């Protein structure tokens, strides 16, 4: 090439012109071409030849670059297609502008259909309006959380959960569409569901321990209703008597009536509170070994023992005679008392979290079960309330646990009570009658 290297632009212009001239020359239009200006361009054939070479060089370069570009495009395409996530871009109206292979596979869509692809084609119906709304708001420049989970649907009707990460595509400061990467989270959802279900199962177990046998519940209801009913009756009867005095005591009658109204309301509250309770029927009395029942409950408590990092010390008397009662209901009382004990020690040093479970025969007709924790004990102010229905100190408690425990134990001809340990902690005890052969 010549030493005073012309720029690409100059070369191009000159080339175009010389080509035009050459074309004219070969076309025989000599007069038109051989003007003064053009002649100066055609200084030498050599120069024309140089220009040809330059042009060849340029063409070669362009070809090379095009190949490189295609190669890099292919590389990029392979990355995009082989990526685990599905990728999709769309424009401001939501028209699909690009999808990768993974997208086609994940959503079961053929490449030909991509141009006419709409949200409706790959979203479960209940999610369509939500996602359209998100898209529209994003297009209006609203700040929308990038991650979103929804259920997608394939043409064959198969549904699956995906997680989408959407980012707006901005060109010259204007939003022109979005690009999203979509991940199949079916497995994750399944795992989450399994965890949810096991949580639910545990909840049900705890619920069972609170809301137990029909008869236990009935006794509890009976007691709670009997109290206000008894008070209403005594007040009414007292009022009748006050009226029958020679000079009736109207003030006392008025007070009695006020109390009657108050207790009536209380009875209403009891009934309302009970409506929410679920019942389990069948109260079955059998003879059974209390120690076996205790062992069973302890194995049920495996998770709590791990979770609360407590140790259980068993002091179960050997050779106990069988007791007589509703085995399931009694087991639930054991479970409930142990759970209470475990929870009462949650705040202690790990070393002192010990739950003692004890069985013993107190006389020829009585077996006593005790569970002893080393928690903070039961405060004086709670002592009065603790066995009452709907009384609870737990955030999510129903306050039926101990009330039902008591009604179950009493329905089984036993007694239930508690004592506070002098060096803190609480002892819950109940007794059951020894089984006697008929």
């Amino acid at each position, binding site marked *: 090439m010549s030493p005073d290297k012309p720029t690409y632009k100059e070369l191009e212009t000159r080339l175009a012109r010389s080509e035009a001239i050459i074309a004219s020359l070969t076309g025989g239009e000599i007069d038109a071409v051989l003007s003064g200006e053009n002649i100066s361009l055609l200084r030498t054939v050599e120069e024309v030849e140089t220009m040809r070479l330059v042009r060849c060089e340029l063409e070669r370069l362009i070809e090379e670059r095009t190949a490189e570009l295609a190669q890099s495009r292919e590389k990029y395409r392979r990355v995009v297609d082989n990526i685990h996530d599905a990728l999709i871009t769309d424009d401001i109206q939501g028209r699909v502008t690009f999808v990768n292979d993974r997208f086609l596979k994940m959503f079961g869509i053929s490449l030909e259909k991509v141009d006419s692809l709409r949200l409706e084609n790959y979203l479960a119906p209940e999610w369509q309006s939500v996602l359209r709304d998100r898209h529209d708001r994003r297009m209006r420049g609203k700040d929308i959380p990038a991650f979103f989970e929804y259920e997608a649907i394939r043409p064959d009707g198969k549904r699956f959960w995906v997680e989408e990460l959407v980012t707006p595509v901005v060109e010259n400061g204007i939003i022109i569409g979005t690009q999203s990467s979509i991940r199949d989270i079916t497995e994750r959802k399944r795992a989450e569901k399994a965890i949810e279900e096991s949580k639910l199962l545990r909840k049900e177990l705890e619920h069972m321990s609170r809301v137990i046998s029909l008869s236990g519940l009935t006794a509890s209801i*009976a007691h709670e209703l009997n*109290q206000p009913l008894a008070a*209403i009756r005594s007040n009414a009867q007292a009022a009748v008597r006050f009226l029958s005095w020679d000079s009736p005591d109207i003030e*006392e009658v008025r007070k009695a009536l006020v*109390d009657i109204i108050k207790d009536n309301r209380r009875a209403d509250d009891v009934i309302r509170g009970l409506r929410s309770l679920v019942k389990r029927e069948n109260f079955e009395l059998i003879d059974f070994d209390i120690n076996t029942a205790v062992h069973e409950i302890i194995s049920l408590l495996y998770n709590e023992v791990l979770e609360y990092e407590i140790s259980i010390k068993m002091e179960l008397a050997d050779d106990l005679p069988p007791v007589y009662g509703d085995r399931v209901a009694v087991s639930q009382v054991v479970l409930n008392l142990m759970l209470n004990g475990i929870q009462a020690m949650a705040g202690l040093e790990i070393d002192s979290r010990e739950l003692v479970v004890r069985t013993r025969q107190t006389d020829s007709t009585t077996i006593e079960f005790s569970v002893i924790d080393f928690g903070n004990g039961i405060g004086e102010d709670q002592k009065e309330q603790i066995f009452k229905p709907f009384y609870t100190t737990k955030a999510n408690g129903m306050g039926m646990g101990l009330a039902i425990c008591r009604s179950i134990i009493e329905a089984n001809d036993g007694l239930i009570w508690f004592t506070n340990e002098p060096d803190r902690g609480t002892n819950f005890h109940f007794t059951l009658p020894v089984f006697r052969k008929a």
Partner: protein
Amino acid sequence: MNEDSPIVFIVDDDPSICSSLTRLISSIGLQAKSFTSAQEFLQHERPKGPCCLVLDIRLPGLSGLDLQDYLNSLPYNIPIIFITGCGNIPMSVRAIKHGAMNFLEKPFEDQALLDAVQNAIEQHKQARQKEAEIFEIQQRIESLTSREREVFALVVTGMLNKQIAAELGTSEKTIKVHRARIMNKMKAESIAELVRMAGKVNL
């Protein structure tokens, strides 16, 4: 009402029950006082006159049955009427075995409770009279000399003066003197009365 008027104590953890029973009992002109725990009742001063206790079985802290046992361990015989909202058989058996006067299930007829209360008060009145009598007899026995007490013990078994003299190694005449003094000190009109007195103090 003076301080010797009969009084009915009510112990029930339910304030509604306390106030309604207090009202019911006062409607027949009896004095009533209620407590919501056994401990509260125990702190209260003991009455001079006859009384009875209407006691709920199920109480926070010391239960009704525990309170009954505790009261039984004291020289304080107050008749107890148990009331319960959910009594079972073992409980009622235990209560009655330990000396309860009555066992009523809530809700009960007013007349049933009022009858029970009046019976209890009446019983307590008699018991107190008997106690006073026994106390009086014991006081009289205290006034006897040790020899007189020996003679007294033998007289009430129905022994003759002669037999007693032989038993104690003394003369019949001496026994006669002792016997006259005993009759005098014990304020007994007859041997039969003396025997009754001895029976009352389980001599």
